[in-house]
């Protein structure tokens, strides 16, 4: 199927051009034949993509690299400063803390958020009636705007003993907990909300992947006498491993760039315990300092770390995934 779709258009093009100008040698290309052959209208149709991607994707990406080696303050022309931005960022005493916090966030997000959608999706895939209802309920938090979700959960996290979560904890004789007010509690609280907001999307991805598991495999496992657990362990999970590997790294890439939660919940506090890399970037560039060079340098470093991480990860997992 893929072969034919690749072959036809070129074949058609070649067949078509000589027909258009019967007197001409098929090889000669002039602007006129280009226009007649649809080249101009193709270019016009490609314009939205070229302009939008050119200005707002390709150009800024290149500019990011350039800017990280420059000192830009928007008043005087940009100046080449070599590795100064990188040195400045690496010497920032906040960086180790922010890196640790980001790592901690990503790690907690994996602990909280990685197994839950999988378990939910596997259970859900066994529901035959009204599975749509289950899926819709799981996905509902994903459509809640993140700002609303954070502000709502901020209310839930009210540290007084009549806060929503503390009231619930009180039913079980626990609490009251400090939630966002405490250095040790703040980050897990952030991650809990982020997990709530994102898990539904992963559930749906797993559900879609689960429908692709060939039923014959379960039949075969049953013939071999496998029970439910062994079917899950020996058929379901191995069949999902491709998707599982991808969601794992995508989640890390996503959580490494977390911004809304720390920015709105705590603003990085208390005592910088929730300051993430992205919050640092934001403060460099937009926190009054206007240090765009340092901000892009840090963004690039984060991107390189993520790229290396994913490259190593894919190298490692390619052996096991299909």
């Amino acid at each position, binding site marked *: 199927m893929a072969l034919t779709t690749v072959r036809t258009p070129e074949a058609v093009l070649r067949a078509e051009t000589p027909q258009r100008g019967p007197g001409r040698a098929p090889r000669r290309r002039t602007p006129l034949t280009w226009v007649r052959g649809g080249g101009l209208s193709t270019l016009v149709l490609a314009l939205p993509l070229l302009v939008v991607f050119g200005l707002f994707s390709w150009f800024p990406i290149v500019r990011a690299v350039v800017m990280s080696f420059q000192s830009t303050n928007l008043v005087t022309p940009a100046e080449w400063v070599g590795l100064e931005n990188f040195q400045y960022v690496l010497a920032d005493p906040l960086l180790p803390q922010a890196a640790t916090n980001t790592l901690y966030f990503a790690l907690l997000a994996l602990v909280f958020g990685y197994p839950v959608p999988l378990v939910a999706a596997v259970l859900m895939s066994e529901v035959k009636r009204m599975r749509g209802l289950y899926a819709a309920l799981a996905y509902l938090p994903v459509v809640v705007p993140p700002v609303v979700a954070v502000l*709502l959960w901020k*209310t839930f996290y009210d540290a007084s003993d009549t806060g929503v979560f503390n009231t619930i904890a009180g039913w079980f004789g626990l609490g009251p907990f400090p939630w966002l007010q405490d250095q040790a509690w703040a980050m897990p609280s952030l991650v809990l909300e982020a997990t709530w907001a994102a898990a539904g999307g992963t559930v749906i991805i797993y559900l879609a992947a689960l429908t692709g598991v060939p039923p014959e495999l379960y039949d075969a496992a049953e013939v071999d006498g496998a029970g439910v657990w062994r079917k899950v362990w020996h058929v379901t999970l191995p069949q999902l491993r491709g998707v599982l590997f991808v969601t794992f790294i995508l989640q890390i890439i996503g959580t490494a760039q977390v911004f809304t939660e720390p920015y709105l919940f705590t603003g990085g506090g208390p005592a910088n315990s929730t300051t993430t890399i992205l919050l640092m970037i934001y403060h460099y560039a937009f926190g009054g300092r206007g240090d765009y060079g340092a901000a892009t340098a840090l963004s690039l470093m984060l991107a390189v770390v993520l790229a290396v991480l994913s490259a190593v990860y894919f190298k490692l997992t390619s052996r096991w995934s299909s």
Partner: protein
Amino acid sequence: MTAVTTPAPRPPAARRGRTPVPADPDRGIVSVADRRRRGVRWPLRASHVLLLVSLVVVGLGPILWLAKAAVTPTQDTLRTPLALFPHGVDWANLSEAWTRFEIDHYFGNTMWLALGSWAVQLVVAVSGGYVLSVLRPAYGKVLTALVLSTLFVPAVVLLVPLYLTVLDVPFAHVSLINSFWAVWLPAGASAFNVLLVKRFFDNLPREIFEAARVDGAGPFRVGWSIVVPMSKPILGVVSVFAFISAWKDFLWPLLVLRDVDKQPLSVRLPALESYVELDVFLAALAISTAIPIVIFLIFQRTFLQGAGLGGAVKG
């Protein structure tokens, strides 16, 4: 434990279609035969009920609480947050948020931002996907690779340079700050959309385009009258996600829409938090959640299909 011991119901589980039994064409982990067995059925059903209850509590619970708190007086929400209207319902919260704190205005801004982003994304994705998939100019492969490569650049890299680009757009030398275009245009640069649409176009039967071309239809005509009508499913997916993601956007509008008058709900809500009374504030939160949820409920199927698709494309 083995299904072999129950010979009679075995056939329906074996293969699809043949038997009149309306068993699942896609059997799951538990076989149809096992489903009927008491030892399996009850734990299975119990797990489903448990799952449903926890989904309702976790997924729906916070949203229902918000809906309740939106029409509850502040004192009740503060003192007994989980009690159901101990001192009556306060409908005035909603109207106060809507009019006095100008949620209507910011709501309109959000709506405009979402609609414009949707339109730009659709135009770029459809025309781009059409060029890359159907027209395939000589530079098509390079273009596809360039679009694809942006998928691998994490969003954080773009943040600052994109901001500076919007501040002073190259060639045009205009500033888009405080203009909705600053949100609309960058939204169009979504490689994910373009590739999703392109992949869909790739699978459309080429003979139809050829037939139309032979009949004298130009590239615009073929695109508009044949490709677009055939692509409704994928355009639906791109549309709902474009709209919802624009509605959810926070950091970008925060940076480029400095003028309070232009800001969407997502940017205004955190600012409101500091000076608006809690019940009215929660009412404002509820109002800003209503539209995305309604859209989700209407286009549920498209959403869930698309979310699964997202995994397939990424995978």
